[in-house]
């Protein structure tokens, strides 16, 4: 729109002349007015000059009005068009604003992040990705990752699903950490292979350690998971990666300490420290079930698996409990092995010396235990189960190494999030809090947790951090804001109400704008009577 030309304030006589013109244009000039105009015109030659100027303009206007309706409709058409375009611009601005707000909201949703992930797999699909530094990434079913690979970091953002990672030592910068970021936390690879997953299906999120192990961020080495909550199990002050078989993370046990010789530590280990005691964790049946549920999509590169299973490797594994020996064997042989701690509890194995294939080695290991290893087609690994004809009673032998008392950690949901009991197996009560299991209480505020650090060796709570008030307020307002506490139908209602609010707001602004522009163009409701 063209801006207003400043009114010419050339001179007082010109202004007077224009004023007279405006008067004379009325078409109903009285005789008295005409007489006063004549007086003004005659009073000063300057007045006459100014009037002549104004008359020039008048003449040009007259020339236009000679064409009459043509000029009129031309001017009317353009002024109408300009009004229309202003309205269109306003409408467009409103639409753009609403669209950008909607786009911002959509970008925050997990669905959008899944859809725009760098690499993703569909349900039932598996994909191998070679990373720039030589690391390999295997995506499981329904997995989405973003890669942040740069000079400063090697970060894999895991939005959903699970990944199996074989890290390569970074040639340029040794000690250049390899990190996996999930919605629940960050996992750092200490060893060379680990598995990390986000299991949205049952709301579990856990990092699973593989060969060499992985450490979660935090001071203490920890292993966390549970239903929508975080458990930290302290292994003492020193961080030491648990050395696990590929299959060990599928079992319920952490391995016993073993001597350093038979399985050399992977290249990037930085925090290795011999630790006198290694805890042995047994999880409650609930956790076990959760873990096994998460196991459904176990990842292993199939080709490598086939090779390792057929090849005979020389093993030298000392006797030990039936938890440790097969685990160590699986590490050495490079196979996946799933062990149910309930079956192996209290049993021992004579160990293994000699060259064995995977199948043969497992068979030899399990002699006398009443268990057998069967190939598992879904995981392409092996599963321990009770032998069909288990007549041999388990041999009893002293357990190797210092086995800590079994610590069972269970938790109860609470609505107040203040203090609940963490039952520690045979040990006395310990303090700790956690967010409730959703299925037991129906409570839907996953953020409201108090992280506690439980020393797995003694079962005592070593640290507890209360949540700051502002975070509490934030998490409390979260379900109110998103309406995600009553299933999909409530979410839809919430979204509709939000849209209605936006419409009310937008239409209100539009009405206000159009009212203020109409006030200038249209007649007021009560026209003032013209005074003459």
């Amino acid at each position, binding site marked *: 729109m063209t801006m207003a030309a400043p*009114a010419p304030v050339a001179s007082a006589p010109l202004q007077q002349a224009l*004023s007279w013109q*405006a008067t004379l244009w009325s078409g109903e000039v009285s005789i008295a007015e005409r007489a006063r105009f004549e007086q003004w015109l005659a009073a000063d030659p300057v007045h006459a000059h100014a009037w002549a100027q104004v008359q020039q*303009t008048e003449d040009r206007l007259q020339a236009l009005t000679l064409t009459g309706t043509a000029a*009129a409709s031309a*001017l009317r058409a353009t*002024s109408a068009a300009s009004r229309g375009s202003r309205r269109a611009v306003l409408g467009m601005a409103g639409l753009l604003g609403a669209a950008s707000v909607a786009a911002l909201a959509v970008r925050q949703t997990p669905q959008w992040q899944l859809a725009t992930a760098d690499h993703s797999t569909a349900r039932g699909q598996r994909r191998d990705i070679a990373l720039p530094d030589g690391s390999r990434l295997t995506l499981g079913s329904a997995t989405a990752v973003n890669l942040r690979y740069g000079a400063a970091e090697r970060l894999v953002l895991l939005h959903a699903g699970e990944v199996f990672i074989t890290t390569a030592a970074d040639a340029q910068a040794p000690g250049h950490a390899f990190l996996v970021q999930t919605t629940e936390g960050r996992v750092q690879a200490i060893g060379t292979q680990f598995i990390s997953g986000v299991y949205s299906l049952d709301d579990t999120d856990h990092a699973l350690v593989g060969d060499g192990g992985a450490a979660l961020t935090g001071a203490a080495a920890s292993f966390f998971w549970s239903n929508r909550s975080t458990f930290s199990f302290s292994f003492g002050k020193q961080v030491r990666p648990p050395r696990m078989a590929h299959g060990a993370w599928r079992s319920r046990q952490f391995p016993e300490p073993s001597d350093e010789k038979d399985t050399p530590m992977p290249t990037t280990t930085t925090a290795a420290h011999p630790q006198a005691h290694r805890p042995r964790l047994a999880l409650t049946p609930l956790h076990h079930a959760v873990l096994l549920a998460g196991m459904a999509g176990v990842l292993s590169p199939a080709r490598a698996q086939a090779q390792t299973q057929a090849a005979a490797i020389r093993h030298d594994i000392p006797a030990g409990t039936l938890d440790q020996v097969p685990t160590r064997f699986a590490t050495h042989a490079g196979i996946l092995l799933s062990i149910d701690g309930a079956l192996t509890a209290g049993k021992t194995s004579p160990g293994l010396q000699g060259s064995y294939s995977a199948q043969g080695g497992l068979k030899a290991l399990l002699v006398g235990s009443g268990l057998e290893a069967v190939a598992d087609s879904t995981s392409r690994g092996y599963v321990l189960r009770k032998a069909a004809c288990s007549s041999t009673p388990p041999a009893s032998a002293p357990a190797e190494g210092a086995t800590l008392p079994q610590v069972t950690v269970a938790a109860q949901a609470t609505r107040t999030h203040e203090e609940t009991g963490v039952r520690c197996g045979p040990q006395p009560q310990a303090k700790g809090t956690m967010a409730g299991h959703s299925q037991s209480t129906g409570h839907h505020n996953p953020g409201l947790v108090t992280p506690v650090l439980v020393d797995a060796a003694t079962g005592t709570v070593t640290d507890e951090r209360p949540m700051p008030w502002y975070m509490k307020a934030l998490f409390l307002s979260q379900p109110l804001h998103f309406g995600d506490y009553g299933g999909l139908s409530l979410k839809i209602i919430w979204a509709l109400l939000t849209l209605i609010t936006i419409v009310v707001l937008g239409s209100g602004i539009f009405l206000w704008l159009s009212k203020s522009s109409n006030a200038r163009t249209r007649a007021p409701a009560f026209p003032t009577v*013209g005074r003459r």
Partner: protein
Amino acid sequence: MHRRRVIEAAYLDALTHLPDALAPSPEVRAQAIEALLLLDQALGGLPARVRETFLLSQLDGLTYSAIAQRLGISVAAVRKYMLRAAQACHAALNPMP
């Protein structure tokens, strides 16, 4: 540039409704379009009500009281608007004041 085309189109379109005898010569047309463009610029910067008042008076030839009745404003207001429009037109059509 866009406005010029709009005005030209509207003017020529309006001319087609005139009988051939009244049709202005091409020279007059060009001048008229030029003047219309200047006028349109001047009026474009004015409030909508001032513009409407001016068009009703100058093009439709209505008297001030008729305009006042039609727009529901006082005659004094019409005169005020017309003065404002006259100032704008004078500035637009006479670049040298």
